[in-house]
């Protein structure tokens, strides 16, 4: 390769990385947590007296009670019957047109318990940060689509520039006095090893934002106007019947699950979603996980009145289109190999966040003026922005976890105040970084994040009495895992804060990371 071409790809890598890096940091950090969406949701607002999956025979009574009080749930109501994770049985639906999320179960006396806005929406807020980086909708989704395009370019250019020395230097982790070399090595090895996953994330990220444009373009250019028809044909799979307007008796959830078991004995069913409840055209998605398949999630779409199979979406039996879609989805969300793969995706997400953070630090470091205290304005501003946005998002998310535990004690508008807490902490951190300067802000925000993160298990223990040991003893392993992960996370933030402090006090003097610079 010509040196000139190499230089061009270096510039491309630097700038795409710098522009997209900070939004990607938030998306990856939040995405790592979103891998455990269900567990976080249950951690944030555990049901006081949950029904268990063993109480499936009560499901018809639950559905009847929900529909009587909330007729809007007739259109679509999901029954979680998770056999593996948490054993909790609950009904969930969204209000139309407000999209407000509700969950319900029957208490010991058979009375309906409904929770709405007073229930924490923590898991959904983190999920929202994953695909908008916190930028308000509808701009957020599109902004992240463009970020995904830049991310894809950064990936390709990164590989091009490291190709010449790729195999020689890949596993070289040169620990020594040259701190920049160490960071560069860590950046390279993480980037190359997680590349296949990053390619999947980038492509699905672009599609997530721009699928409508691509559908329309394909319709016109490739399919001569018949593309939308094909698309509707594919997606009508999920909505095979319209309400008939005539009432009919439905099969119970237990009967529908039994029917699905006959057809897919190996599948472990996680949820049954009813549509057109009580109508002659009622149907149900009976979905779950099939072990031993790369894209193991899928299921059956059954007529809820007759039990007839309307569509087969079982892994290995569904149509090529669904194989492609489920393949990409499970590769993006890490839903193909149970808990070990989920933890791998959690670590991949954090490693990705490190990739973007270290990329910015490397850019700043390579522009450091070693012989003068006075550093360039733009590197100093980049340092402040990187600290404010990246550490600010970590701080904001930890603070929102704590808020999810404390807010229900103070207000019924939990969902609203959770958002306020996140944005106040995030924007406050950003302002702090610009006011205090990078070195001081980095240290202070890292200590604050460590504190907020250790408060996650503390607040849970204080409010619900569920400290990790109690959680383990009562079989709530997912809850214990979140608390223990938070303890480890707090420790990690503390160590990073101390390292930052050391650099301020004893690091090489001429840098944006020392308080002696004119902008400090």
């Amino acid at each position, binding site marked *: 390769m010509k040196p000139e071409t190499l230089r061009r790809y270096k510039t491309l890598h630097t700038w795409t990385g710098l522009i997209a890096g900070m939004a990607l940091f938030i998306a990856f950090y939040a995405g790592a947590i979103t891998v455990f969406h269900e567990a976080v949701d249950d951690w944030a607002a555990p049901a006081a007296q949950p029904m268990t999956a063993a109480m499936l025979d009560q499901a018809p009574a639950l559905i009847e009670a929900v529909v009587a009080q909330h007729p809007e749930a007739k259109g679509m109501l999901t029954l979680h019957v998770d056999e593996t994770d948490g054993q909790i049985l609950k009904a969930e639906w969204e209000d139309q047109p407000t999209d407000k999320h509700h969950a319900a179960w029957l208490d010991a006396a058979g009375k309906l318990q409904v929770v709405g806005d007073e229930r924490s929406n923590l898991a959904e807020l983190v999920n929202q940060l994953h695909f908008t980086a916190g930028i308000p909708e509808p701009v957020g989704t599109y902004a992240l689509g463009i970020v995904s395009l830049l991310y894809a370019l950064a990936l390709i250019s990164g590989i091009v520039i490291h190709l010449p020395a790729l195999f020689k230097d890949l596993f070289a982790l040169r620990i020594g006095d040259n701190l920049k070399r160490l960071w560069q090595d860590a950046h390279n090895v993480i980037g190359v090893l997680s590349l296949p996953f990053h390619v999947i994330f980038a*492509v699905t990220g672009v599609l997530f934002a721009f699928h409508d444009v691509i559908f329309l373009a394909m319709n016109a250019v490739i399919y001569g106007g018949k593309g939308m028809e094909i698309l509707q044909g594919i997606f009508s799979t999920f909505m095979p019947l319209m309400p008939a307007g005539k009432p009919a008796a439905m099969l119970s959830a237990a009967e529908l699950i039994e029917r699905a078991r006959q057809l897919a004995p190996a599948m472990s069913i996680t949820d049954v979603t009813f549509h057109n409840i009580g109508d002659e055209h009622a149907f149900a998605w009976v979905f779950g996980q099939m072990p031993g398949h790369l894209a193991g999630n899928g299921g059956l779409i059954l007529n809820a009145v007759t039990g007839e199979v309307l569509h087969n979406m079982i892994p290995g039996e569904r149509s090529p289109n669904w194989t492609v879609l489920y393949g990409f989805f499970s590769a993006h969300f890490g839903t193909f190999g149970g808990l070990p793969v989920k933890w791998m995706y959690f670590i991949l997400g954090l490693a990705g966040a490190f990739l973007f953070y270290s990329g910015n630090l490397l850019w700043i470091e390579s522009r450091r003026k070693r012989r003068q205290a006075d550093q360039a304005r733009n590197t100093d501003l980049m340092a402040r922005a990187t600290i404010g946005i990246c550490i600010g998002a970590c701080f904001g998310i930890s603070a929102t976890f704590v808020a999810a535990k404390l807010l229900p004690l103070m207000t019924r508008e939990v969902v609203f105040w959770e958002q306020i807490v996140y944005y106040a902490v995030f924007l406050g951190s950003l302002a702090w970084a610009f006011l205090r300067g990078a070195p001081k802000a980095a240290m202070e925000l890292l200590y604050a994040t460590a504190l907020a993160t250790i408060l996650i298990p503390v607040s849970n223990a204080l409010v619900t009495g569920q400290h990790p040991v109690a959680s383990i003893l009562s079989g709530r392993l997912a809850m214990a895992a979140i608390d223990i992960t938070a303890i480890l996370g707090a420790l990690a933030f503390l160590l990073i804060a101390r390292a930052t402090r050391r650099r301020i006090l004893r690091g090489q003097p001429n840098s944006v990371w020392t308080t002696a610079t004119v902008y400090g």
Partner: protein
Amino acid sequence: MTRLDWLQRIAGGVLLGLPLALALSGIVALIGPGKIEDRYLLIVYLVPILWIVILAGNFACTENRRSWLMLVAGNILGFAALVTLRIALHLS
């Protein structure tokens, strides 16, 4: 490269790269095995993948003129092939 050079490469990759990616995906859509509608979602993924590759590859060109020339030529060839296929398959 100057700032104007960079702008040209980005504009070329975005504006001509997407139609080229569509044309190439369209050829796969029309001549692949099985029924045309069974490949639809594969093509949905193929379009952004090819677009990204073209966007990135466009920066390998040493001269702006060559970059534009290749994109335009690629589009002409790609669409010629696609239209021929569509006529041959009685799709338009």
